[in-house]
């Protein structure tokens, strides 16, 4: 027996590896439910509805078309914003990376956009375009564009210049330069930035809908809050968390893992 295994093996000799693995998965939800129940007792069911009531609310919602309508609208808005920002970052970022002077001139502007809290854009867009789908989409664009743009532009800037000179000497067509030099050189940085952008897209979309849309999960959260319908508020919050976790664990983590160099993996894993 290894010294590190002593306490567990001593206290729970009958527990095999599968039990430990199962316990790891179950521990976090159990802790959440226990804390939730304690909070419900401490603050009263009116402020913190018990888990059972929220589950019933969630089940009722899942049986209606409304949940899927609002959920699909939120996913669409987030996806559309992210896709638009990615396209803009590629179209603007690649030329900027090839022209460092332009990049240096634009950097302060992009940084200024990056440091703006989403609430500024939400307020402005509410006045300019009014309540609706355009607000969350555009807020996602301005929230994730700087990250994607800076990442792509810097990745292009860091490419070996001699490759471009050689391509010029041998009259390599621009399409080949793009597919043979730029894309392979930039892909890893771009994917890293994309995984980061994906993580913030979901949060920004819900926030923008809370303030600036009449439909979507964020807007439903607003109405639940406005009516102090706490069971519904918790239910919509759980929907947001579940989708957020699915994104994080199912898409973002695998994407980041795929970017890790093989040497970084632990040898004894």
């Amino acid at each position: 027996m290894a010294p590190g295994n002593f306490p567990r093996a001593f206290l729970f000799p009958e527990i095999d590896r599968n039990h430990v693995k199962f316990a790891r998965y179950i521990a976090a939800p159990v802790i959440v439910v226990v804390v939730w129940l304690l909070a419900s007792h401490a603050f009263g069911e009116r402020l913190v509805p018990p888990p059972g009531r929220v589950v019933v609310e969630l089940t009722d919602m899942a049986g209606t078309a409304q949940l899927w309508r609002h959920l699909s609208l939120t996913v669409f808005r987030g996806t559309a914003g992210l896709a638009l920002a990615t396209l803009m970052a590629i179209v603007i970022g690649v030329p900027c990376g090839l022209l460092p002077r332009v990049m240096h001139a634009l950097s302060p502007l992009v940084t200024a956009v990056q440091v703006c809290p989403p609430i500024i854009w939400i307020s402005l867009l509410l006045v300019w375009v009014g309540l609706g789908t355009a607000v969350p989409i555009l807020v996602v664009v301005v929230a994730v564009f700087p990250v994607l743009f800076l990442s792509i532009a810097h990745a292009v800037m860091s490419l070996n210049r001699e490759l471009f000179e050689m391509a010029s000497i041998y009259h390599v067509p621009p399409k080949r330069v793009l597919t043979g030099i730029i894309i392979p050189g930039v892909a890893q940085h771009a994917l890293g930035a994309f995984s980061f952008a994906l993580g913030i897209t979901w949060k920004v979309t819900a926030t923008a809908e809370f303030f600036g849309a009449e439909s979507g999960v964020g807007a439903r959260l607003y109405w639940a809050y406005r009516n102090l319908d706490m069971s519904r508020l918790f239910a919509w919050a759980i929907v947001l968390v579940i989708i957020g976790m699915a994104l994080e664990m199912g898409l973002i983590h695998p994407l980041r893992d795929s970017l890790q160099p093989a040497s970084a993996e632990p040898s004894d894993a």
Partner: protein
Amino acid sequence: MKTAIPIACCLTALAVVGAWVALKEGGSQAPLPSTNGNAPPALVFYTNPGATTPQLPFWAAKAAGHLDDIFTIEVRTWKNVVDLQGALLAGKGDLWLGHLEGFARARRMGAPVRILAVSGWRKMNIVSTDPAIRSLEDLAGTVLPYAPVGSPGVPVLEFLLGTRKDDIQLRPHEPKQLALLMLQGKARSALLPEPLVTTLLRKVDGLRVVENLEELYGRQTGGLPRMPLAGFAVNDAFLARHPARVSQLLACLTAAAGALAISPDAAAAAMPEMFTPFVSRDIVRESLTRDVILVEPASKVAEEIRQFLALVAPDALAEEEPGGARQLPPGLLVP
């Protein structure tokens, strides 16, 4: 990457459905079905489920089918006054339900909005569970919570208090938050609008109406016990396109209000089903004992509107002429 593919597929499917929903409905409620086979011009109506009395005539006229020959109505909801202000400034919508001072402020900022009719006259009440509070004067030295944030009741109350206005500290709250505080006994007095007053009178033991703000306002100004609080406004461009139909709409609203005024049951029944999660028909029926259903064309009550706006939103009025009173912004009212 095994989990990534199914999750990406699910999200893509949801996004495609969402795109279809967004395109089909424009992210809002579907148009209400018209009972008439003809296709009159579309009218996009922006309203709020929290406003009851001011919009009952519209829904009564709609339910009776009187509007079907005039417009094909599409309903959209605004969530708070900021949303409404955004819709007004962006010129989104053809007909809006809202507070008059919001319409006037938007007009001053260049929004294409004209007030068509006034339909909200009485709703502000001071309520209390404290036996010592029997009049406005008894509130001196207290903290008075109010709802909603930006309530026109606040400047009216300050006007009524005059030089004593600093004696009362006013604290803004969201309606339901304040309702919760009152239910928990953490707030004993408040300045509230209908139908929240009726809701709380049912639920909070010992709660009673101390003063009605419109009554006090009428006494102070020597006018009627009412204030032009809320109403309908129409888009400039829409009015220019359909002047005759807008006149017909106004006539329908006025007639519907007259019919509802004598039958609170019919008024409560006129409220559309989509608003019942926000306020029940019973509450609406009961609130009408303190409220009044009346639609007046804005041009008919222009001076009342001017006086009210001078009080609650002087910045929304036109610049003061030398020695003269502030006037309504040009074109604010539908002639």
